[in-house]
């Protein structure tokens, strides 16, 4: 029972990170109808930028801010320089271009930093508190919950309470009408990509201390888990992404806790297959049919 409780909290903490990453995927999907397969690589690039700043200045927080801001800039650049010029008549094209970006980013990172794992420091202790003799949460887990919670709250506020959020939703929902009404649709798209990449980078920064360390391929599995989370919740639904993330996190924690860590990736694959075949629109999607 103690072990079960510990794994549950561990799973929720992992799940919060997956939720943030899945949210980044959902943001871009809603804005541009593209699943950003380069999200993982972009998050790694941002994390490396943060790592460099942390090493140079000795401050984790400067590195953290650099990573999130770097993600913001990278997202805007990717949309403005590459994605805007993709021919979207076939849904394949966007995916292929994103995969090309993955190769470029991983190659450039490998050239600059080399292909070995770089240990990344955590801002808080990862030793769990003992509550009633049971190890439950670490300070780092609390930090993860706070960070992801803040992001979710800010995004909700942005999309439901501000004029900019309204414009972004309008630009995604009916681009032509919005353009006629004076909404800068292209700018909203860039903003959407920038925001999503920043959220993805935040998730990347949060996940790195819990893994082996920084590596150009470090986010491959994070991407798969977050993609599964996003599909589980329905690619259209931000609420679904958060719930999906927590579910995937719990599943991974239980599977690696009871069956062994090497089985966890397979569990994700099986969950993805089951969701795609059983309920491909996700648990929270309102859309009747999937067209793309």
């Amino acid at each position, binding site marked *: 029972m103690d072990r079960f409780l510990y794994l549950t909290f561990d799973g929720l903490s992992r799940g919060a990170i997956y939720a943030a990453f899945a949210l980044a995927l959902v943001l871009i999907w809603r804005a541009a109808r*593209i699943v950003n397969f380069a999200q993982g690589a972009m998050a790694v690039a941002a994390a490396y930028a943060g790592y460099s700043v942390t090493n140079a200045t000795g401050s984790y927080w400067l590195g953290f801010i650099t990573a999130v801001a770097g993600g913001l800039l990278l997202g805007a650049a990717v949309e403005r320089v590459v994605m805007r010029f*993709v*021919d979207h008549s076939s*849904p394949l094209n966007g995916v*292929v271009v994103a995969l090309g970006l993955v*190769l470029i980013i991983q*190659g450039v990172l490998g050239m600059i930093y080399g292909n070995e794992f770089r240990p990344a420091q955590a801002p808080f202790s990862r030793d769990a508190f003992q509550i009633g003799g049971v190890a439950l949460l670490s300070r780092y887990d609390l930090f993860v919950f706070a960070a992801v919670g803040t992001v979710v709250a800010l995004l909700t506020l942005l999309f439901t309470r501000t004029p900019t959020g309204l414009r972004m939703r309008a630009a995604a929902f009916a681009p032509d009408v919005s353009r006629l009404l004076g909404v800068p649709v292209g700018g909203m798209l860039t903003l959407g990509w920038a925001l999503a990449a920043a959220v993805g980078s935040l998730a990347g920064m949060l996940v790195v201390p819990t893994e082996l360390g920084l590596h150009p391929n470090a986010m491959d599995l994070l991407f798969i888990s977050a993609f*599964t989370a996003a599909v589980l919740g329905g690619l259209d639904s931000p609420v679904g992404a958060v719930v999906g993330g927590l579910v995937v996190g719990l599943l991974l924690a239980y599977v690696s806790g009871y069956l062994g860590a*090497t089985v966890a990736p397979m569990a994700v694959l099986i969950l993805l297959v089951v969701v795609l075949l059983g309920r491909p629109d996700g648990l929270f999607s309102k859309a009747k049919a999937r067209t793309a």
Partner: protein
Amino acid sequence: MVSAPKKVAISRKKRQRISPLLVVIPAAALILALTYALPPFRNYQLATVGAYLCVTAGLTVLTGLNGQLSLGHGALMATGAYTLALMQNRFNLLVAGIVVAVLVTTVVGAVIGLAAARLRGPYLAGLTLAVAVVVPSIASTFDETFNSDQGLTVALEPPPDAITVEQWQAWVCWGAALVTVLLLAYLIRGRFGRDLRAVRDDETAAKLAGIGVARTQVLAFVVSAACAGLAGALFAVLAQSVSPGAFPLTLSLFLLMAIVIGGLGRLVGALIGAVLLVALPSFAQSIAESSGSVRLEGNLALTFFGVVLVVVMLAAPGGLTSLTNLRIRRKSQKGRK
């Protein structure tokens, strides 16, 4: 003035008049001559091109002609390679090993294909990406059979004394590659190829014309999986070992780059892609060596492939071979609108 769609039809007809046999037989003669002229290392590279050609040819049929994007072909190659390694180490009969490797991969491909037929666009890409990332971890889960990250060595009979190992490898790989290309060429010019294109272009119209959409999609996946299994088995023969590290996610992305740059759906494009898959890393390697930087090694090729993929998709989504064809098709699309 001939209308644009008719032009496409005419140009297609002209292309189809060349019999595949007339291309493959001279190619076989050329390869045979080359294997005697080339030094061992070049022969090895030639053999690798042949092995790559098997998988790119199959993948271009799936992605180019049927519109299904698979990122899981690296994992399917791993399936073929591991099957061959296990077969060889037990029975040591190369032909039987290759046949079983193809069969096993075909079955795995059929399973993925059954799921894939129900999925479109990014969903299919995501599922196959998950397969590519997860499958290497299976090797460490069942480590008594697959020996974890170290992988397995492949026992092979030495070739006859008259020829070098590399020459023999080139024969095996190109023999398999040319047979694959020949079979695929006949397959896609017949009814099956027409069904593939019909399903890709408009599923509803294809259904109305009496084509089984799901059946066609699963078959396309099975055919290309068999090709990937063959290529995987050949890679095991080439390297004389198999390990999860030989089939990373980037391998699947490289395969995608190869078929995109050569022109999706064209077997000639698959050949161009296969040549580039061998030539570019070797070129990048020589640059890295001359500059003396360890970090450039591998990563330069990675970056280069990425840039090529993005630039080709932005500038000419039809790939290198179809630059002229593309213009006609664009016109015909405008005409229809």
